[in-house]
């Protein structure tokens, strides 16, 4: 029996759930749609009525937040702590000033000459105060959170787990480039094509690998790019400079114990630049780093491309 899929547009990207047992597709699809709606209401930076927008608009106050946003912020802070600040949720303000201040479709469609980008130093994740017992978060004035690096991957992990439980089937969930799997995998594992753009066709250029557990995520500078004034920018900010990361990598794909961990590692690798392969290797993370010059570096047992 071949896996079957259900795909929809959500969170500014493509969301897919794939089940090993076709009978489980309905239940898995329901989980996907319900969870995506909740994540959007909690974590979107582009919805003025989202919990995150309300938090960013209320600095210097302990703001009560729901469990979705509380968990997403906690995971983002852990990512920052675990990468020495390479993946930092307090990049929101500089990202907004750089022009990424609305959904990407609108950013890409804006007249570049009508916008002048600015950049600011990133305040740093230590500025954010989370009180888990009271369910509140406080961000100081001048700090804006962006959860783009972790919230989607966190949602993919959760949806995969819950969809597997609801459907009784092995499940793969892909939100943009973030892939999570749960339950019993198909006999040959879940086959995933790794490419520069998650929206590329399944028969387009790329390498195919098979995973059985955890997550696989790709971060890159090739897709989410925009022009602002005379500059061409992308969405992965280097917290050390407050500007789009200058990196030799076009796309970095990482497999890890969870989709969140894979996404955190792939984003950190883009920011780290030339030292990323050693950083990934030290953590035992299988990764494929595609350079802007066409070169490919593999770490941690990532398989060679089939001849």
């Amino acid at each position, binding site marked *: 029996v071949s896996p079957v899929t259900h795909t929809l547009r959500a969170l500014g990207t493509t969301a897919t759930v794939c089940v090993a047992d076709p009978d489980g597709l309905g239940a898995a699809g329901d989980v996907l749609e319900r969870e995506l709606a909740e994540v959007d209401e909690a974590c979107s930076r582009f919805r003025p009525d989202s919990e995150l927008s309300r938090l960013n608009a209320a600095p210097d106050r302990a703001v009560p937040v729901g469990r979705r946003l509380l968990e997403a912020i906690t995971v983002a802070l852990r990512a920052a*702590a*675990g990468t020495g600040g390479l993946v930092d949720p307090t990049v929101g303000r500089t990202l907004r000033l750089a022009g990424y201040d609305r959904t990407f479709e609108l950013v890409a469609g804006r007249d570049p000459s009508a916008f002048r980008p600015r950049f600011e130093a990133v305040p740093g994740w230590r500025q954010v105060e989370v009180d888990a017992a009271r369910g509140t978060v406080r961000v100081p004035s001048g700090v804006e959170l962006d959860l783009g690096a972790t919230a989607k991957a966190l949602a993919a992990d959760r949806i995969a787990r819950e969809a597997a439980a609801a459907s009784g089937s092995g499940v793969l969930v892909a939100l943009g480039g*973030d892939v999570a799997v749960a339950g019993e995998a198909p006999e040959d594992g879940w086959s995933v094509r790794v490419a520069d*753009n998650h929206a590329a066709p399944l028969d387009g250029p790329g390498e195919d690998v*098979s*995973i059985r557990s955890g997550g*696989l995520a*790709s971060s*890159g500078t090739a*897709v989410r790019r925009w022009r602002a004034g005379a500059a061409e920018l992308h969405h992965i900010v280097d917290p050390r400079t407050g500007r789009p990361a200058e990196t030799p990598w076009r796309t970095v794909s990482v497999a890890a114990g969870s989709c969140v961990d894979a996404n955190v590692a792939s984003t950190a690798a883009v920011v780290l630049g030339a030292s990323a392969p050693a950083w990934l290797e030290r953590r035992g993370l299988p990764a494929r780093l595609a350079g802007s010059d066409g070169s490919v570096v593999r770490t941690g047992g990532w398989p060679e491309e089939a001849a």
Partner: protein
Amino acid sequence: MPPDRELRARLEARDRGLRRLRALTTWLVVGAAGLAAAFAGLAAHSAPGRKATRATLLRATTTRPKRVPPPPALPALGSDYATTPSAPVQAPSPAVSAPVVVSGGS
């Protein structure tokens, strides 16, 4: 020895003993007070109260370069999320079937 001389000698011995005892008591009181002061100072230095800490911090901000604050305590999470990215149970293997999704930049 005549009885009155013997009595005087005993009285003098008693007075000398009392003087020594008084001197010893005085030294003991002074020594105890000194030790108490020393321990109090030591305790105040090693475990300062709130007021003392604040005063120290205020002085520090005017005389020393600003320090990076310690990381805040992070709320507990399920065991799924480690502090550092965790390696997969099994590395990816070459695919033998057709891909079901694409992982790439988004």
